């Protein structure tokens, strides 16, 4: 569906060589590469209209404010939010989740209440809730999981209850690729009066996401994983929820009036954006959204289904390799998590690296999940719009040779 060959031309870094070999970037779940248009949007900003936003009467301030707010509107449209006021800029997914933990959750989750999670949460959607649980006397509860990395929803009625105050759930697992049935679970959560936070770090970049369809109360995601710059992320929240929340960080920009002893708060969404925002990178994320919209998110998704399907099939050739997570590419994202029987992931990572292939190795910020899977570390290849089946071939062929290499031990210096 996507013309990856053409897309690749938009990404300057993809023509780079690593150890003399063409770069094969398969570490997209960690961070994506950036198209020229995004990089250029930063240059245009700094060379043409850099100025602090919102309070200036001069031309550059007006221009930068307009571009900054236009980017917000683009992001709102991208996830089908009703209003730009629902889009709060953060540094990344992690800060977005911490914002909710330190405001809504801090004020609304009490002793004995339950926060419902899954065993596959990224540390960023787990450790903040540990703090809330500890400080407010609440309990973390985990939806059970099948061996193949999908949620076990058989006893779902017993899982949600009157004490459930929040469902905080990853939309697409960054480790195993599992796509969780967020919409159905959100309906369950709302039925018992709980709120729903979706960690969209791996869904928003890779598939169409509609916050009204999911009916989530909060959605968190990162710009750097969706062709955007580092340093910019998003918290989406329903307008009425945001309206009721106490501000998080305090200082300039988020206030309306200030006296020595007290202050009142600015309108949404500035109320949640203290200090000078990351203006350039918000605009850069707007450019990334433009790029993705032009590709079409249905096409992006389809491309990854194809790559993942092809990858999973080719992985079957590797006898000594275990693949974790669901096997049907239609119900999973574009990350393949695996281990080679006899080679530690870090050795594998080093061997792949010397072939120009960037994969990620370790715990992928899901240490508890690794324990549940019974492994200390794993390797992961993850795909995006510019990856090709040829690159999947390079990966699999590279793995084959690595396995062979480690099988022969009699070599000398």
């Amino acid at each position, binding site marked *: 569906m996507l013309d990856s060959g053409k897309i690749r031309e938009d990404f300057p870094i993809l023509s780079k060589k690593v*150890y003399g070999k063409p770069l094969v970037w398969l570490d997209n779940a960690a961070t994506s590469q950036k198209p020229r248009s995004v990089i250029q949007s930063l240059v245009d900003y700094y060379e043409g209209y850099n100025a602090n936003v919102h309070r200036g009467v001069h031309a550059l301030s007006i221009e930068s404010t307009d571009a900054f707010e236009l980017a917000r509107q683009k992001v709102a449209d991208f996830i089908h939010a009703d209003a730009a006021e629902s889009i709060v800029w953060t540094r990344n997914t992690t800060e977005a989740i911490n914002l909710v933990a330190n405001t809504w959750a801090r004020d609304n989750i009490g002793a004995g209440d339950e926060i419902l999670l899954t065993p596959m949460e990224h540390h960023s959607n787990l450790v903040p809730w540990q703090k809330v649980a500890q400080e407010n006397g609440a309990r973390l509860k985990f939806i059970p999981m099948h061996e193949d990395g999908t949620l076990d929803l058989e006893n779902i009625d017993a899982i949600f209850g009157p004490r459930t105050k929040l469902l905080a759930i990853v939309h697409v697992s960054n480790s195993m690729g599992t796509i969780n049935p967020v919409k159905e679970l959100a309906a369950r959560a709302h039925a018992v009066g709980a709120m729903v936070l979706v960690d969209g770090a791996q869904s928003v970049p890779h598939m169409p996401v509609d916050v009204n369809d999911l009916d989530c109360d909060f959605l968190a995601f990162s710009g750097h994983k969706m062709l955007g710059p580092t340093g910019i992320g998003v918290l989406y929240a329903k307008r009425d929820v945001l309206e009721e929340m106490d501000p998080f960080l305090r200082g300039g920009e988020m206030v309306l009036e200030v006296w020595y002893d007290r202050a009142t708060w600015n309108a949404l969404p500035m109320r949640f954006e203290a200090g000078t925002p990351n203006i350039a990178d918000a605009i850069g994320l707007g450019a990334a959204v433009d790029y993705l919209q032009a590709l079409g998110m249905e096409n992006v998704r389809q491309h990854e289904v194809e790559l993942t399907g092809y990858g999973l099939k080719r992985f079957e050739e590797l006898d000594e390799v275990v693949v974790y997570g669901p096997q049907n590419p239609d119900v999973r994202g574009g990350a393949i998590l695996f281990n080679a029987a006899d*080679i*530690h*992931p*870090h*050795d594998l990572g*080093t*061997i792949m690296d*010397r*072939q120009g292939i960037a994969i990620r190795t*370790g*715990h992928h910020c899901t*240490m508890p999940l*690794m324990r549940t899977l019974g*492994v*200390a*570390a794993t390797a992961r290849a993850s795909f995006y719009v510019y990856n090709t089946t040829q690159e999947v071939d390079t990966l699999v*062929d*590279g793995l084959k*040779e690595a396995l062979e*290499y*480690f099988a022969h*031990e*009699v*070599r*000398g*210096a």
Partner: protein
Amino acid sequence: MRFEELDDLYHATILEHRRHPRNSDRLEDPDITADGVNPFCGDEIHIQIALDSEGRVSRVGLQGVGCAINQATGSMLSDAIQGKTLDEVAALSRSFNDLMTGGPHSDGLGELTTLESVRQFPIRIKCALLAWSALDEGIEDYAPARSR
């Protein structure tokens, strides 16, 4: 595919130690125990040391999970410290650290010298150092107990 540049890192000696780690039985009544973890890699190392009446290492147990470099280093270490006093072990550890950081090092490192190649892969140096820093800490913790 040409892996020549990897042949130094995955030297035959290193892979052999990884495949057949020495002294892997756990000691039941050790004088010194030392444990190291690198959560980022999921690597672990567990060392037990028994001393003889003269304070020399008489037996070593070493178990671990982790990459080839970590495993091989541990195995070589468990051989290399045999029969040494704790001061000699500490000196050996310093010497190995020097090897890894590219400083001048004594030539009493024996097989461990094959790990010099790790220096070409800076991100992997910590894999080679895990066992040694665990050992350093184990000896340090033992010293005050000794002087009590």
